[in-house]
């Protein structure tokens, strides 16, 4: 996932952003007193599994998304894909568009993350019929 590139927080940032425009960043690991640190792949798959639950309800979707956005990272395309499909199962187009807005906001000053994510999600977006905020014109005031 795309971590906060230029911030190594006191609580320990894991590996920093891997994106197309390679930010060459050193790996910083979280220090646990016991147990193993979770890898990025494990994190991603955990969240993909969460949103893939067939009978995920609206509350769980909200909780999941709000928690995910609370993390210091931009979620990977596969997590978002899973979340968007969950929106489809719940017949909630508004939330799907909101999720796209949220990740764009989450990327902050890194303006190239969001277009990359949209590019990755294009097949899903056209399959499910989700319009991006840009297509709807709500990305401007």
């Amino acid at each position, binding site marked *: 996932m795309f971590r906060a590139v230029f911030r190594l927080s006191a609580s320990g940032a894991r590996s920093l952003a891997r994106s197309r425009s390679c930010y060459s960043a050193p790996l910083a690991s979280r220090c646990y007193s016991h147990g193993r640190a979770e890898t990025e792949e494990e994190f991603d798959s955990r969240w993909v599994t969460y949103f893939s639950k067939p009978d995920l309800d609206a509350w769980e979707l909200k909780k999941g998304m709000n928690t995910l956005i609370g993390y210091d990272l931009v979620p990977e395309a596969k997590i978002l894909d899973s979340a968007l499909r969950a929106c489809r199962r719940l017949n909630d187009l508004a939330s799907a568009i909101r999720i796209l807005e949220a990740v764009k906001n989450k990327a902050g000053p890194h303006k190239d993350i969001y277009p990359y994510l949209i590019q990755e999600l294009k097949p899903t977006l056209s399959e499910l*019929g989700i319009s991006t905020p840009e*297509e709807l014109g709500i990305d401007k005031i």
Partner: protein
Amino acid sequence: MLRFTAGRVGSLLTRRATAALTTSSARMASHGPGTETSPVDVSQPMYIDRADIPLPDRPYKDVLTEVERSLKEKEKGPWGQLSKEEKIALYRITFCQTYPEMNQKSEEWKTVLGGIFIFLGFSGLLVWWQKVYVCPPRPRTFDEDWQAQQLQRMLDMRVGPVHGLSSHWDYEKGQWK
């Protein structure tokens, strides 16, 4: 002028109070259309526009018009069949402000700064009035010649001869060291 100031201060205070009760910094939280004046039931799930809470606890509009309800029914089908306006309408049913709208800069800082200066100015007026009407006259011990005589007396008494005042005075030459 005073009435204008009081009104501005009044509105600033009420806005500050309501802003303190909500978590939104740029805008007050919306409770849904037409409910701003009635008290909010905080024991119920609340709606809020926050960048870090993309999906609030409840949709913005609870009560839907006939058109909106039929649109919600259409939402259950393929989304490709919805027009742009319908998609925007669905968004606005569930959410009040879009992310760009909620992240808008406000002019509030001007009000805040203006309020600060008003209060500082008012305090300045109070201090001036105090100086003129409350403070007693300046004691004569502050006069230049009194201070000079006082210093001479202290030197004569050898006040602080080791490390203090008199230790810095050269008694032979009659000047400071």
